[in-house]
């Protein structure tokens, strides 16, 4: 059962990634990226990393993608133009190298057969909220605090920049 769900999510993720790169329309690309991120969240769930999966959906699928879409819509980009179809040596070499990498990847994937490896019971506990909270606030307390200060500084800086552009008061 888990194998089939993994195959479903993996195919979705890869297909969405391909769709994101190939679609001409930027908004469609962004929506494909949402699909990709959510499928990856599903794979995290299969790995028993609940917290990571929820964070993936909340931060990337929700908040960041909304901001992405905002910016894309405000920029009002037109559809991308067709790629140059003129033949050149560079494209030929690039295509050749791509084929080599793809065949290597396929070879590696084909050599792994059978079902998914079983998750170690100790690993199952790692993905829970308790373990992550314990690690963050007991072992890595100082790095967390430093990161928090850094983020606050970044927010204050962003506010300052935004304010200067509107009123011009801060600049004087």
């Amino acid at each position, binding site marked *: 059962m888990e194998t089939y769900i993994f195959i479903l999510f993996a195919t979705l993720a890869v297909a969405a990634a391909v769709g994101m790169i190939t679609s001409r329309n930027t908004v469609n690309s962004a929506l494909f990226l*949402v699909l990709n991120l959510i499928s990856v969240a599903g794979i995290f769930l299969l790995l028993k990393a*609940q917290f990571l999966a929820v964070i993936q*959906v909340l931060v990337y*699928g929700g908040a960041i993608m*909304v901001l992405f879409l905002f910016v894309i*819509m405000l920029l009002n980009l037109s559809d991308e133009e067709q790629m140059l179809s003129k033949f050149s040596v560079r494209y030929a070499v690039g295509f050749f190298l791509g084929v080599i990498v793809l065949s290597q990847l396929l070879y590696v994937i084909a050599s792994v057969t059978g079902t998914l490896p079983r998750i170690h019971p100790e690993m199952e506990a790692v993905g829970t909220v308790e373990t992550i909270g314990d690690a963050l606030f007991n072992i890595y307390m100082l790095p967390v605090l430093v990161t928090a200060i850094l983020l606050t500084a970044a927010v204050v800086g962003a506010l300052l920049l935004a304010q200067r552009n509107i009123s011009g008061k801060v600049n004087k």
Partner: protein
Amino acid sequence: MQQFLESFLPAGPLVVFVFSIIPLMIILVYALFAIWLERKVAGHIQDRLGPMHTGGWHGWSQTIADLVKMIQKEDIVPAKADRFLFKMAPFIAFAASYAAFVAIPFSSGYIGSMIDVGIFYIVAITSLLSVSIIMAGWASNNKWSLLGAMRTAAQTVSYEVPTVVTILSVIIVTGTLNLMEVTEMQTGNAFLGFLPNWLIFHSPFMVIAFVLFFIASLAEAHRVPFDLPESESELVGGYQTEYSGMRWGLFMLTEYADMLLLSLVGATLFFGGWNSPFGSFMDGPVWGAFWMLLKGMILVFVMMWLRWTLPRLRVDQLMNVCWKYLIPLSFVNLVLIALWEMIF
């Protein structure tokens, strides 16, 4: 619940199907009832009667008649719309809203999934709602839709902050994210001898937390006074301007499902969820479902009541309320609740 279903249903997949479809049944029946109730509440607050004729008793089947009308309507897609996204958006919206009901404990015997991250999962999955609304607004290829979608996105992203912080302050008290365990903690009648052991009576700051949560959840559900995404007088219909028939109906259903979801979360976090207010009197799995839905419906009724009491905010006022008042207040409240927990 699952064992109960297995006792009379033959096949395993059927059990899973019935088990997972129970909240959908609740939402569908509730939505029909709630839309009728909203009209009645609106009518009585404005000193009129509301729907009276359809179905006989106080027009109870008005919404069913509307539903039949909606199904018969032509499925219109604007010529310049992005067809695929336009058709997909309502379904994704409802899926995001429905997926959140998985972690809601409807009674002591029924919860979709006992995942550890419970409430956190609800917050995460409902944030996909704004993505689907942006999809709808952009795909319609209409200025009103796009403006409505932009407003929705800005509003949802902003009001997520106070919602999450107030939920976090409750989580500090309970120590668990699983809503079933949060409800089980509130069982009993210990506080002052007669008040139920609900979290809202836990400390004075919990009352403040509930008020903040309720205001933020009004904004999350796009209810008046925060219904800017679809304010009729300035944006026609917001992101749903171009939608008609059943696709529009799905957006309507999503909106009402979202109201119920946030009310149920509020009831679980502050008002004891499926616990009876009378201690062990009228307790048990079936009464539990009754109490849970009753508490949810009372909060939904307050939302409807507020709609006819308060005027709509302007966009800048909306952002001011969130960033200048709600967020600082919720953070201060978070610290105070943490201190209360440390001292007592």
